[in-house]
């Protein structure tokens, strides 16, 4: 007879020394792993709860300005440098990891309206309420030297915003009219005018560098071409737009932060209706900035909160607020996609994590694998009510909570009224109007 009985050699299953790792033989037969779905569900629940436990987004703040911060700008090549301008004309250069101020000087008499680096990163330009554009060196002045601008340009009109070309030494300013300047000249190279209204903000397209967008005080957004064509198109919304930001990954998409508490993502190929309407703020949205991946953007608003939206979704995925943070004037997403910096009315610049429960610092491979697994679980079971409830839950200050309730009742009332009208009139008389079509008034060529 032939017999064989299972007999295992313990040496194959036990580690040799205590400095080795344990041996873990695996068998993926599904019969040995019962309750797959229920165990995965339990793990997903744990993952979502842990995400909330580790959600500590506030990293630090930069203290030092003596008046509200009006504008901030990232260095295009270095992650640790930040420049900020204040309402009293002071400009400060910060070192982010140490949260120290490297340089501070008074740049303008009056508010500093805009601060921007040139693409190489060796100069920066500041725009002030005293109608001047000053160019400064990024390198700190030597001991004994004073802070002096390399170049000062005095403009004839009031200036409110500045934007630099992606590669060329060209920048554009807006104020009463849109002007395109070159770094070496003291006179604007080109001026664009359309209508008699003043412009609040201007932005160069980072992918298609000849395209400019600006927002005017007649509640419109105007697109310009810096080549011979000039102003191209204008789209008029219901309320004024405060800021525009182009998507760094897709050449034809830009997002506008509007006074009517919404943000509108437009596709330049079809300006008749926005590609997406982002609703969640309860106050006028004052600033917008895109993440370097082009998939998310951050918006700061008058209601003292910062919200992070995904470009494809209509509602925010995250909200940041602090009792001490008052009206937000500017927000920036750092170029390594990890941090969000914002300047506010109360003289502080705050640093937040872009993903609230992310672990900063290097991750061991096992940690990374475990975190990836948790992410995949959260995505798979996202629709389950218990998990969705935990993932969606955010604490929000009382004034925001009450305002959200109020806005909800206002919108419900509008919907109910429409539904009643539709129910009591001839079918087809009151058509359904999609949300995206409700916000644009007209489009001009």
């Amino acid at each position, binding site marked *: 007879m032939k017999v064989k009985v299972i*007999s295992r050699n313990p040496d*194959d299953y036990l580690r040799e020394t205590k400095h080795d790792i344990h041996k873990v033989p695996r*068998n993926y037969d599904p019969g040995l792993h*019962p309750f797959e779905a229920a165990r995965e569900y339990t793990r997903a629940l744990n993952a979502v709860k842990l995400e909330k436990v580790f959600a500590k987004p506030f990293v630090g703040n930069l203290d030092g300005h003596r008046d509200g911060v009006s504008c901030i700008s990232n260095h295009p090549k270095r992650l640790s440098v930040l420049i900020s301008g204040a309402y009293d004309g002071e400009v400060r250069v910060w070192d982010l990891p140490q949260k120290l101020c490297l340089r501070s000087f008074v740049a303008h008499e009056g508010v500093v309206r805009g601060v921007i680096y040139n693409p190489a990163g060796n100069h920066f330009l500041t725009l002030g309420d005293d109608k001047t554009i000053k160019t400064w060196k990024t390198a700190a002045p030597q001991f004994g030297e004073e802070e002096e601008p390399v170049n000062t340009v005095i403009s004839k009109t009031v200036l409110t915003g500045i934007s630099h070309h992606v590669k060329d030494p060209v920048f554009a300013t807006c104020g009463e009219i849109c002007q395109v300047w070159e770094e070496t000249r003291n006179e604007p190279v080109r001026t664009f005018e359309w209508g008699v209204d003043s412009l609040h903000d201007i932005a160069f397209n980072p992918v298609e560098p000849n395209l400019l967008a600006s927002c005017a005080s007649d509640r419109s957004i105007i697109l310009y071409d810096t080549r011979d064509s000039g102003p191209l198109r204008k789209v008029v919304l219901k309320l004024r737009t405060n800021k525009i930001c182009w998507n760094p990954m897709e050449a034809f998409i830009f997002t506008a932060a509007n006074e009517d508490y919404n943000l509108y993502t437009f596709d330049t190929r079809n300006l008749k209706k926005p590609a997406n309407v982002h609703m969640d703020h309860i106050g006028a949205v004052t600033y917008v900035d895109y993440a370097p991946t082009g998939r998310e953007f951050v918006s700061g608003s008058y209601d003292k909160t910062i919200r992070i939206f995904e470009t494809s979704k209509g509602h925010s995925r995250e909200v940041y607020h602090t009792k001490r943070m008052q009206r937000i004037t500017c927000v920036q997403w750092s170029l390594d996609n990890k941090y969000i910096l914002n300047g506010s009315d109360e003289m502080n610049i705050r640093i937040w994590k872009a993903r609230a429960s992310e672990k900063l610092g290097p991750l061991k491979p096992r940690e990374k694998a475990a975190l990836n697994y948790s992410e995949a679980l959260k995505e798979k079971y996202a629709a389950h009510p218990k998990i969705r409830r935990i993932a969606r839950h955010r604490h929000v200050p009382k004034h925001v909570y009450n305002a959200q309730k109020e806005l909800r009742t206002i919108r419900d009332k509008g919907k109910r009224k429409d539904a009643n009208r539709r129910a009591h009139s001839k079918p087809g008389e009151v058509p359904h109007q999609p949300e995206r079509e409700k916000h644009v008034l007209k489009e001009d060529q």
Partner: protein
Amino acid sequence: MGKVQRYFNKTEDISPSSKTSPSKDTIVYNIKPKLKPWGRRQSDKVINKKKKVVKLPNPNPKFKGKVPIPKKRLKKYARGEGINKTGIKTKIHQKKFEKKEKVIKFAAQQAARAEVLLIEEEGFLEADAGETTTQFTQKQIRENVDITAASKCFDLRLEDFGPYRMKYTRNGRHMLLGGKRGHVAAFDWVTKKLHCEINMMESVHDVCWLHLETMFAAAQKEWVYMYDNQGIELHCIKKLHRVTRMEFLPYHFLLAACSDMGYLSWLDISIGQMVSQFNSRLGRLTMLTQNPWNAVLCVGHVKGVVSMWSPNSKDPLAKMLCHKAPLTALHVDPRGQYLATAASNRELKIWDVRKLEGPVQEYKLITAANNLNFSQKNMLALGMGNVVEVYRDCCTTATKRPYLRHRFTTSIGNLNFCPYEDVLGVATAKSVTSLLVPGSGEPNFDALEANPFQTKSQRKEAEVKSLLEKIQPELITLEPNVIAEVDIPTLKDKIDAKQKLLHVKPPKINYTPRNKAKGKGGSAKIAKNKKIVQEQAKKEFVKSTKDFIPKLNIQKEQQKESGVLDRFLPKKRKT
């Protein structure tokens, strides 16, 4: 011998007009195609999506690429068919799901390929020509096997303390035995190291390991006691009164017990709460087993009925009439596919427990089987009085003779196959024996589920991880994977909900009104306001249910059919 004429040196006139002179028959049409702007042309819209597959020549023709996976093996690792793509409306979502399906398919293939890495192989016992496996005795098997395997076959003579019951831990490393007269011992049966041996001084009806080899429970005369593996009493659970049989559900951390009075209880040992305890109204319960695939308790009854219970409902989830005679034993196989039941009329039936159908196989035995146990490789062990018979493949085919047989001197109390080993543990009235059954255990274990070679630190980590993954008892149903499916309420549920609406009464609002300041209050005003609020609530309720009620009335009217013999129908009394 001049130079060769190159084509570019030809001085011929190659203008088209001189070449072809149109003959009189041909008609020349001069067409100027209008070039539409790019993007509008038909050719620009059609994007050639077929990737140009460039097949590189095989550098080593002996190896023809990846080994194809046998379909049966792939089916074992595949988790069912994919979704029906015709239901998805948008193209973007269709593409997203296609990508997901690809990943799932790849994962199944990789798992199937990983079988090559399994080191151990199944045991076997082959008889030569002219012999059958049934005739081999344990002694013969022991002589023909290596020394470590031979040491797994042993016999403990315990004559004084009554008929014994025994259990193995989940990793098959430790054994627990309990005698009726109170003798309880826990030891590692591979190294023969004793953990503890005590006498309870009262009758012990059943013993059960808890989640690790550090804790066990003993159902004693009145209540259930929990002990440490050193024999220290940890708990006395007075809520579990006169328990006859106990089962431990490892993934839910529930100790399930059935009692003399017919009570079924589930105790969560991680938090110490009784999850559910109720009377099953079936009388005295003595046959209990768990279905390891869905954690449902199967209880056998004197009436020949097997009922399945979960802690979520006071009524059984399912009832099966298995035999016409009282049941004597039942067991479910570890994969939750087959249920074996034995009755006192010497029948043995195998049922398909997933479809609740059957019987898949029926057998007639010599005497009634008092004990049944399935092994990991679907071998069935029967305990009939003094004799143990092990059948192989009895579920799928009708076997005629047993695989192995063994006779004891006294009657058998309990039978258990050891997980991950080719061993059958038998507890009789006067001994506890370990028999070799080649081919009954799963040779390759998964260390993250159950590890027979677990060290102390591994045990601690595994305990914490398994506690974190503890499944809530609400998820115990007949279908374990229902949580991952979309919850579509059945049509029946929707109709029931609508019917219920008819009987729902409008909400009655009763409140004590506020005491208002001098000008605003007054009892008359308060009463008036209260009435207004109540009537408003009633109006709103009526409005919201107005839509449903008339539809149901229409259905009722349509059912009335007039016939000639209507006058003879019993008249409906007006209530």
